[in-house]
């Protein structure tokens, strides 16, 4: 159960105009999206354990409010790019469970046709640009998406998510400098779950007492630090940054405090060694964004406990159906290995037909 103090804090953020504008239906949709993400991942975990899913599986469980809250603020000219812990953002931008689940299973019907896997989801039609496996590697790309929006004269922005460990990569710092120097409408969202794999925040980062986002001061950039348990707080805080990007074409860094309930990836054998069981339990009890939002909505009289059960049930059924879809889908053909390497080859253009492009065999 969410603590009382947190609930009091939430009331203040609930008054923000951006939250006042939410209808009961909107609030339920936000809940539904968070629950769908969780059920999707719980189902994927089951299939990971039975051997149907290979490689890494970085679960977002516990962090759902970050993707859902921030993405709920976006419009047609706003873009999203993130790291490998990308399932939540994918579902939040509106990708379907089927294509997301099938990608985990390595199937031809996956969002990336089985070529990307868990860490590399993409949906450009939904302004979703990945899904990136190299820690911090997406930071310059986020600046570039913002650059393109601005270059085209559109009022939009790019939300670029990264972890508390990723902020120590050089590419991130280069991106901050460029973003501020060139007035790029990019918002770096630090999803601070306290750990980069097994290394805690204090063991990996040097930072001022105000927190990780405060490094923004060095780049003459706006920043904020937000408690990620509450959708109201996330929406109220990040809205200011979106506004800043849209109206002033200025970048921001927003640190959102969150927690992952599971290990770094499913393969994290030490998930309960670098963090105590008590710590994990405390966050699950007091900082679970779904529980928190659910109790907020019940307190507001927007839903009942039964409504919640129904949402949960539907999401579970949807996830099971997605797994079914994935299981029944075919694997890609071997011949697809050489598709999607070169645009010009795929489109059989004159350039694609000129010279030898592949050198095997």
């Amino acid at each position: 159960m969410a603590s009382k103090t947190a609930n009091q804090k939430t009331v203040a953020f609930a008054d923000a105009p951006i939250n006042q504008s939410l209808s009961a239906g909107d609030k339920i949709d936000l809940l539904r999206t968070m629950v769908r993400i969780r059920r999707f991942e719980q189902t994927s975990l089951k299939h990971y354990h039975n051997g149907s899913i290979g490689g890494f599986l970085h679960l977002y469980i516990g962090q759902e409010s970050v993707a859902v809250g921030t993405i709920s603020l976006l419009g047609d000219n706003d873009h999203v790019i993130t790291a490998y812990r990308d399932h939540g953002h994918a579902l939040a931008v509106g990708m379907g469970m089927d294509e997301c689940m099938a990608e985990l299973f390595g199937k031809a019907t996956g969002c990336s046709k089985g070529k990307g896997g868990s860490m590399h989801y993409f949906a450009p039609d939904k302004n979703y640009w990945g899904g990136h496996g190299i820690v911090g590697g997406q930071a310059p790309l986020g600046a570039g998406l913002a650059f393109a929006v601005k270059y085209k004269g559109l009022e939009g922005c790019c939300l670029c998510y990264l972890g508390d460990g990723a902020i120590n990569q050089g590419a991130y710092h280069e991106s901050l400098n460029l973003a501020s120097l060139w007035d790029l409408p990019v918002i770096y969202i630090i999803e601070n779950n306290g750990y980069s794999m097994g290394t805690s925040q204090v063991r990996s980062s040097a930072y001022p007492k105000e927190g990780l986002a405060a490094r923004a001061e060095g780049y003459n950039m706006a920043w904020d630090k937000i408690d990620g348990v509450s959708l109201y707080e996330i929406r109220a805080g990040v809205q200011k940054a979106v506004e800043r990007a849209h109206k002033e074409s200025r970048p921001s860094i927003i640190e959102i405090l969150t927690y992952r309930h599971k290990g770094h990836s499913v393969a994290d054998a030490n998930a309960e060694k670098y963090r105590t069981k008590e710590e994990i339990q405390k966050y699950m009890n007091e900082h679970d964004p779904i529980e928190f939002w659910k109790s907020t909505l019940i307190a507001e009289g927007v839903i009942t406990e039964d409504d919640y059960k129904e949402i949960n049930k539907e999401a579970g059924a949807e996830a099971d159906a997605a797994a079914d879809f994935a299981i029944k889908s075919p694997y890609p053909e071997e011949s697809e290995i050489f598709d999607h390497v070169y645009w010009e080859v795929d489109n059989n253009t004159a350039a694609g037909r000129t010279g030898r492009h592949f050198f095997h065999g």
Partner: protein
Amino acid sequence: MPREITYREALREGLDEELAYDDNVVIIGEEVAEYNGAYKVTEGLWKKWGDKRIIDAPISEAGFIGMGIGASMLGIRPVMELMFFSFAYVAFDQMMNNAAACRYMSGGLINVPIVVRGPANGGTNVGATHSHTPENIFANMPGLKVVTPSDAHDAKGLIKSAIRDNDPVYFMESTVLYGMTGLVPSNDELEDGELIVPIGKAKVKREGSDLTLIAHGRAVVTCLAAAEILAEKYKINAEVLDLRSIRPLDEEAIMTSVRKTHRAICVEENKPFCGVGAQISSMIMEQCFDDLDAPVLRITSADAPAFYSPPIEKLQLPNPEEIVERALSIC
């Protein structure tokens, strides 16, 4: 009338024409705008096109090249200048992972129409850190294209193709070639009204019958000099094939020439290990084994970092005398 212009001017003409051709073309790099380019390739372009199209970047190659890659995913056509291609290594993750693999990992949903260009050559006494020739390294990565023009004509025609290409193209020039002049047609004498050289097409720079010298970039110039010596002193008639593009590679032109001359030497300023010539000699061996009258030879830079001392660095790079000597060993 064809004009005698420098490689540098030819590049600039190509860039200027593409800036006019497509509003989404934007040039970004260190000193490209107000300073007119460290090697003056972009001279005058900022004055003509202004701040939106020609942008001075801070010294931040991973940042601005990565940014260009991100922008290209949304349809911008960034032409990024590296002051030296050697500096690609600080942007390596962006250039090898993000540019090369985003299309593949998205199952074809994304493409990255970026050009990264700059000089990639040794021989100017700037030491090991500034003398890298990474064409083999980048050509190793599927998804990337590598282009290496050796003269003014191709510099112009290939930069235009590179900018219009919808895949990432790494365009490697040479500070030694920038000042060299060559004949470049003016647009009004061309049927299509502009000079386009397709990527992936080699060019026979000198016809010959006894031996094929296969080269790219400045090594082509070295081979042409060697071919003159071979003809004058030894009555050996060498063909010089300029690859122009490393990937895609004009395999047909290579094999056609080798089938005619029955002998081949791959000459490049790359290092030997897994150099461009290693790939090509393996392909010749597989496809032209019975046509060969001698083993395929390779001439590369000496297998050591670039030496600063001017007289010694000269010895590290392929030179006409070395080519002549090796040619005589198989002719």
